[in-house]
């Protein structure tokens, strides 16, 4: 079993929580179910591809260690989450709906928030 929590920015906001709270019940139960499974059985989510690594940037194969997309392909949502090994916790960083247009800007935003998190965590 793992700890899962929201990233809290220096200004006190929790971007992932704010995004989840904004979603309606067509996808929120799916989000809750997968977050709960992440808390309970995260390794199996990697096998199911419900949890996939996020790359350093578009077009590269190099991944950011510990940085994952928790997702539901059918309901087309993604949540960026970082596995903080030192604190032994999964931190929910940012969420977005995947549309036909490239979500790269959303992933860029997630990468930016991760950098902010890592700098404030002193890693």
């Amino acid at each position, binding site marked *: *079993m*793992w*700890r*899962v*929590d*929201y990233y*809290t920015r220096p200004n006190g906001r929790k971007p992932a*929580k704010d995004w*989840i*709270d904004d979603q309606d*019940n067509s996808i*929120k*139960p*799916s989000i*809750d*179910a*997968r*977050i*709960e*499974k992440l*808390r*309970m*059985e*995260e*390794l*199996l*989510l*990697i*096998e*199911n*591809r*419900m949890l996939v*690594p996020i790359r350093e940037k578009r077009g590269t194969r190099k*991944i950011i*260690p*510990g940085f994952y997309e928790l997702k*539901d*392909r*059918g*309901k087309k949502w993604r949540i960026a989450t970082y*596995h903080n*090994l*030192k604190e*032994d916790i999964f931190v*929910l960083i940012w969420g977005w709906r995947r549309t036909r247009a490239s979500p790269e800007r959303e992933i860029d935003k997630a990468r930016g928030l991760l950098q902010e998190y890592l700098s404030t965590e002193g890693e």
Partner: protein
Amino acid sequence: MSTTPTDDLLERLKDTEYAKLYGEENAKVDFAITLTKARKSLNLTQKSLADKLGISQPYVAKLEGGEANPTLGRIGSLLAAIHLRLVTGTAPLKPEPMPAITGFIPMGAADAVNAGLYLRTRHSQEESSWAFDFPSSVPVNAGTATYPTPVEPRRYSAREAVGGAAI
């Protein structure tokens, strides 16, 4: 007061209509994980499992991704094709609280700089000790499991998945 995702879920589950929606999604994800466990225990790829089941690989991917919503009969029929049957149980809907001792950490995890490698290492340790689930009672938070059909002899004894030293 600071809330965690679990706190937020507990609050949402007070709404019965929301709980029903959550229960549906939870069941699909539970079965997805159960099917993946069964496939990996048989050392099958999604493609080879699809061939055995007479369905497409993309549909296997959907089943394992928790995106599909097959009927119970369909699930039984699919599993029978690989000499398994579904065994269901119930568990409390509310999330389990974190225990005092939290999970297992393999030795040397503090030195791991690549969390992906760390997770894969844990997974391979867990994979080597897990065969089939044969709970003597319904485990908490377990949704579904698979068992060999009577024609298939039992090959494995009950085991718990262990990832390393307990902290």
